[in-house]
C-alpha cells in the first residue's frame, strides 16, 4: 500500500510541477582511523609472536569422517559409508571434474553433517543398549558425567583439565534434551553437538 501511495504521489508531482528538485548532497564519508591496536586479553602473547609456525587447522576429510565415526562407534571398518555422489558434493575429489578436496566447512557441508549427526547418533544410541557395557559409546558408565567425559574424549580427545570447561555446557544440553520421552535423548543430543563441533571436525 505504501508503495502504491508513493507511486501516486510521484505521478501527481510529475503532473503538477515542472520545478526540478536539486539532488541531495552526497553523504559525508566518516573518517576511519586506527590509532592503536585493540587491547589484548590478559596473558595474550605479543602479536609479532603469533607468527610461530604450527600446522594449520584442517577440516576432517570425508574419508577421515567416515572411518572416525566407525572407530568412535566401535563398528567394523567401512560401516559408515556416504553415497559416492554425496561425497563429491561434500568436497571429495572425483579426479574428473575436481582434483583437490574442498576442506572448507561450507554451509552445505555443515547442513549434511547435521543430517549425518542425527542419523549416526540415533543409530549409535539404539545400538548402545544391546551391546556389552565395555563396548558402549554413550552409556558405558553408571553416571552422566562419566559418560559425558568419555564421549568428549572419544570425539575430541579432550580430557582432564582441558575438558573441564566443556562439561557444564554438555551437562546443560544433556539435561535439556532429557526432557524428551525418547530414551537416551540427552546422550543423543550430546553426540550430535560433538559431531558438529569444531573440536571434532577440525584438527
Amino acid at each position, binding site marked *: 500500500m505504501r508503495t502504491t501511495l508513493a507511486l501516486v504521489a510521484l505521478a501527481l508531482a510529475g503532473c503538477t510541477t515542472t520545478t526540478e528538485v536539486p539532488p541531495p548532497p552526497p553523504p559525508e564519508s566518516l573518517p576511519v582511523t586506527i590509532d592503536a591496536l585493540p587491547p589484548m*586479553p*590478559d*596473558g*595474550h*602473547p605479543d602479536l609479532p*609472536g*603469533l607468527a*610461530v*609456525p*604450527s*600446522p*594449520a*587447522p584442517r577440516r*576432517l*576429510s570425508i*574419508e*577421515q569422517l567416515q*572411518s*572416525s565415526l*566407525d*572407530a*568412535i562407534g*566401535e563398528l567394523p571398518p567401512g560401516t559408515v559409508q556416504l553415497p559416492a555422489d554425496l561425497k563429491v558434493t561434500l568436497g571429495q575429489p572425483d*579426479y*574428473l571434474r575436481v*582434483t*583437490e578436496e574442498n576442506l572448507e566447512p561450507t554451509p552445505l557441508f555443515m547442513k549434511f553433517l*547435521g543430517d549425518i*549427526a*542425527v542419523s549416526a547418533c*540415533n543409530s549409535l544410541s539404539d545400538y548402545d543398549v544391546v551391546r556389552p557395557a565395555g563396548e558402549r559409546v554413550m552409556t558405558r558408565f553408571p553416571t552422566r558425567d562419566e559418560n559425558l567425559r568419555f564421549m568428549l*574424549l*572419544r*570425539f575430541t*580427545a579432550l*580430557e582432564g583439565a*582441558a575438558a573441564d*570447561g*566443556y562439561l557444564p*555446557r*554438555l551437562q546443560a*544440553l544433556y539435561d*535439556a*534434551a532429557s526432557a*524428551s520421552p*525418547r530414551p537416551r*535423548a540427552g546422550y*543423543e*543430543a*550430546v*553426540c*550430535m*553437538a*560433538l559431531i*558438529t*563441533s*569444531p*573440536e571434532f571436525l*577440525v*584438527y
Partner: protein
Amino acid sequence: MKWSRLVLALSLVAQAALAQSAGPVCEVARPLDGQRLLRRLSLDLRHVVPSRVEQEAQRGHEDVSEATIDAMLSSDGFRKVVRAYHADLLWPNLDAVEIDPNYFDLIETEIAPGVKVWWSPVRSLYYRTITKVFVPCSAQPASYDTSGYLVTAPLIEGGMPVARQEGWVEVEPYWAPGTRVKVCGYDAQTAAQAPICPTGGGAYVTQTCNQFRGYAQAVGFDPTGQPAACDSAFGLLAPGCGCGPNLRFCSTDATAKAVRASMLEQQLRLIDRIVTTGRPYTDVLLAKDVEVNGPLAHYLTFQSTTSFDIFGEKDVTAPVPAGLSYTSPGWVPQPRAGRHSGVLTTAGYLLKFQSNRARAHRFYSAFECSQFVPNGPLPSPSEPCSKREDLTQRCGCNACHVKLEPMAAHWGRFAEYGHTPLDEARYPKTYGTVCAGITNLDQLFRCFRFYQLEAVGDELPFKGLLKPYVFRTPEEEAGLEAGPTHLVQESIDSGRFAQCTTRRVWTRFMHREPTAAEELEVLPGLAQDFEANGFDFKRLVKAVVMNPAYRRMP
C-alpha cells in the same frame, strides 16, 4: 524425526557454547597435549581417530612415543594415506576414457517375454539396419545356411522391410565361465578375421566403406575385401566379425568398469609396494615391476586393439603372464622392460594424460612442483612469429613450450591417445618402410596415425618422421629415445625430485605451505636427509611429524 531435529538444534546451540570454553588466553604456539597430539597423528597418518584402547594407553603421557608413530607408519591406514596422497598427484579417474568402443559394447535386453539377449546396438546399426536403427535380433534361435552364413529374415513394418534380423545363439561368456547366455547371432560370431566392405554388407557398412575408400585410395590402396582382424576397429566394417570366442573382444558396462578400476589400481598397488616395503621412493617413477589382474590381463590380451580412438597393441616389453583369465583372482607380477618407467608408463597414467604434453605437464607439476606460466598475452596472430608451426619458436607460446616440448618428447615412443610403446621395428623413425606400397589395413593405419605425411613451414625438414620426432633437436631425440626414465633421472640427479617431494609431504602434514623461513631453514635439511637415506618416504613423513612445529596447536 522431528524430535531429532529439535535435539540437533539444541546441540548446535551447545556447540557454539563449546567454542567459548577455551578461555580468554590464546593458545597460539602452545604444544598440543598428549591426547590431542595422538589424535592429530592418527588422523594424519591413518585417516582415523585413535581407538579407545590407544587413548587409554596415552593417558598421563604428554608426548606420543616414537614407537607409536612407527606403528602408525606401518599400519594399513598409512597405506591408505599414501594412496590418497598419490591420488591427488595422479588424478586416478578414467571414466571419460573410451577403452570400450561402442561397437564392441554389449547390453542385455529382454526382446520377448522371458527372452533376454546380449547385443551391440552399434553393430546392429551397421549390420541389421535398412531404415530402422538399433534393432536387436529376433527372439528365435539362429540358423545357418549350407555355407555356414547366418540366415536373416526381414523385419517388416508398414509393409516395408526396415531391418534384417538373425536369431540368437547361446554362448559361455568370458565374464561368467560355466554359464550360458543368449547373444545375437552377429555379435556371437567367433571369426578371428573377415573381409571388410563386402558387397551387400548393409547400408551403414556401404556408406562408411565408401568414405573409407576415398581416403585409402589417395595412397593407392583399395580396402575392399581386405581381411580385417576382428579384434580391431576395422572389424566393424566386416560383417563376418563378431565378439570372438566367449565374446572375448566385447565388453559390458561391468567389465569395462572393472578394467578401468584395474588400470588405476595397478598404479596404486605399485606405490603401495614401494612405500610399505621401504624401497626407494624414486621407484614410483622408475620401477619396471608392476602387477596385473584378471580383468586387465583380459583387456590387454583381447580388447586393447578394438578402438580407433584409444590405441593399443600387444606390448612385447610387458607381456601378460600366461594363464590369466578375466575371472582369475588376485594380482600377479607383470615384469616390464624397455622404456617402461614406474607409474609414468602404466596404462592408467597414459590414458589419464593422453597427449605427451599432458604426461610431461603432470610429471612437472606433481613431482617437480613446477607450473608452466605464460609470460604475458599472446601477440597479434598476424605477427610472422605467431605463424611458426614449431611452438618453441612461436612467440607467446614459446615461454612454456620451449621447456614443455623437449619434456613431452620423453613419451615420444609411447602412443598418444593410447597405452602401448611404439617400438623401432614396427614404428621406425622415418616412414619409408611403413608408408611405401601400402598393402594391408595395419600398414595403412600405422602410416596415417603416426607419421607426419604432410608438412608446411617449419615442418618441411621433418616430413615423413614419426610425429614425436618433428621439431626435435639431436639432443632432444636422445631424450625421446631414452624414454621417461631419462627425464626422471635428471630430476632426481638435480635434487628437484627430492625437494618437491619434501615440500609436498610438509604441506600435506602441516596442512599449509611452508613459510619463507621454513623454505630456507627446514626443508633443505629434510630433502637432504630424504635423499641421503635412499629416498625413504616413511622416514620423510616421520621427520615432518616429529618436527616441533607439527606438535604445536594450530
